[in-house]
């Protein structure tokens, strides 16, 4: 069983939703990322998305655009992001690590070479927001050969036909985009996401994580009621950026810990509980 599948299976048994923070690698430098990620995990993060900076992030709002600009100002490359994953593993980080970034740097790096190096660095999965299933065959094949998951996104505009197509290709989990728009913290949790999650559930047993717009414990609670995970990106980056450089890791840990308290799902029924062979 892959680290991603195992993590979701364990959380399901515990009746909890996965907390999945996103940080931009190299924002503002690699040392910061190496300090922040372990702190997020200490705060309760279950999986971690490592953003790969790109010059033209068309699906990102201002927060992540600025984060990418800072990372690029310190010349953070895809190779550096792979290095971050490797160093986190060397430090003993056991949580699943996902790389999230746009297609061109991967394309330029070389698809097969990227898959090999990502696997060697201890990466578990890859998310590419501008790579729909129509264009994903080459990367899917290369990642599968290395037993890495390519995580696909589904959105409120995805037709049932597209959901079927994505679910056939997908592994790891499904990234469910909660709203129409770019990334960025929102005050309200998207009310319409429930019906999308239901539609996706009709086509797959893979875990579903909800992302885009999530910033508050009550959003986590709402996501926990319907899905298996919640991704926190822009809101976390806003917190990290607002904190003094020396206190970023603490700020990240505290924020994740605060969100974690809302991540308990409905308790499994006593029947299910007995089935798990506890005590």
């Amino acid at each position, binding site marked *: 069983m892959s680290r991603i599948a195992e993590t979701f299976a364990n959380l399901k048994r515990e009746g909890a939703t996965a907390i999945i923070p996103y940080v931009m690698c190299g924002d503002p430098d690699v040392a910061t990322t190496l300090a922040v990620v372990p702190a997020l995990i200490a705060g309760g993060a279950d999986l971690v998305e490592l953003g790969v900076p790109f010059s033209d992030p068309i*699906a990102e709002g201002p927060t992540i655009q600025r984060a990418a600009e800072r990372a690029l100002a310190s010349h953070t490359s895809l190779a550096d992001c792979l290095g971050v994953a490797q160093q986190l593993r060397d430090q003993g980080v056991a949580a699943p690590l996902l790389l999230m970034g746009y297609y061109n740097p991967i394309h330029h*790096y070389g698809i097969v070479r990227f898959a090999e190096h990502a696997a060697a660095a201890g990466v578990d999965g890859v998310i590419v927001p501008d*790579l729909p299933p129509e*264009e994903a065959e080459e990367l899917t094949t290369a990642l599968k050969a290395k037993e890495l998951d390519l995580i696909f996104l589904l959105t409120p*505009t995805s037709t049932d036909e597209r959901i079927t197509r994505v679910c056939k290709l997908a592994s790891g989990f499904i990234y469910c*985009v909660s709203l129409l728009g770019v990334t960025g913290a929102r005050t309200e949790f998207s009310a319409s996401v429930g019906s999308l999650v239901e539609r996706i559930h009709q086509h797959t047993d893979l875990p579903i994580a909800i992302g885009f717009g999530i910033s508050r414990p009550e959003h986590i609670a709402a996501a926990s009621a319907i899905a298996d995970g919640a991704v926190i990106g822009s809101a976390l980056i806003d917190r990290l950026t607002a904190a003094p450089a020396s206190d970023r890791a603490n700020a990240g840990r505290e924020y994740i810990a605060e969100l974690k308290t809302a991540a308990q799902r409905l308790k499994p029924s006593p029947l299910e509980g007995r089935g798990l062979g506890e005590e």
Partner: protein
Amino acid sequence: MQTIEQPTDTYNLPDANGRFGEFGGKYAPETLMAALTELEQAYDQAKNDVAFGRELHDLSRHYVGRPTPLYHAKKLSAELGGAQIYLKREDLAHTGAHKINNALGQALLAKRMGKQRIIAETGAGQHGVATATVCAMLGLECIVYMGEVDVHRQSLNVFRMKLLGARVEAVKSGGRTLKDAINEAIRDWVTNVETTFYIIGSVVGMHPYPMMVRDFQSVIGREARAQCIEQIGRLPDYIVACVGGGSNAMGIFHPFYHDRSVKLIGVEAGGAGIETGRHAAPLTAGTPGVLHGARSYLMQTADGQVMDTESISAGLDYPGVGPEHSYFKDSGRATYTSATDAQALEGFKLLCRAEGIIPALEPSHAMYTVSQLAPTLPQDAVIILNLSGRGDKDINTVAAVLGVEL
């Protein structure tokens, strides 16, 4: 005299996946995928609808002023002392550039699809003005994204767009030019996809845009081909056009695709010089990559980051290029070269003086290439230069470079 045959072999790219060989495609966020399919289907239906074709044709004639002339520039030809130079006068189209051909076609399609909100990006402002113009005429809401740098260097066009009722959004991210304007327009589209039609201004972006924009711009080449045959009884030997995203070039090249005797030359922006790295010439000095939804030649760093570009001409200041041009380059159907800022200025001044026509800085790049090519050819050779726009918008830029205070 050579015989003129209608093409017999078939060219039917892009394929069903939006590919021109290994270029093109649909590298788009999932949110847009259903909308792109919807657009593809709507365009396919419109293309085969006689009423749509008639409306486009009538407006092209009575509103845009088509057909634009094919003008034999005798004095310029004599001065250069070689081939006969003909100018396809897209500068005489309504709003002063070829951009209106595509803006009109897409706006009619938007109306047909029931989309009332139009967004567009613009570099030099010509596509923004063209889009604002047709939106005013058709009663559609219009928002134009424009890099902050371009807002300043093309202030005349910004004012024109506002007069026409459009809202101009200055984009402050990245290099603050055309590339960044497209990024911001895509972000708007992702957010408002259900109500909004994105009118892309060049043969770039995800399928079906490169195909659709090419088709709407192909009126240039269809006219030029017929006019050339009518005026001189044969096809030209060369067609020369500037290439930023590449819509005017593809528009005039495409109807000559099967005429193998006709050499097609695209001219990119050489900026400060190719050797300096400060230019906007991906076909000349780039490598294949993925930007704005398509795989094509791209100016990128060793890490796969898209480079900021440099050109005196805002309309060519783009690190990518239409995927069909990449296909033409690799297949050898067209050749691509570049002209620097200084060379473009030479071309600009030459056409002003020799023919009494003030060209835009974009086709001034092609003018320079023609000025080098023509003297090497015999006097019965024929070159068509696609004069894609007029130069009024560039007067401030040119004055500044020449050290003239207005």
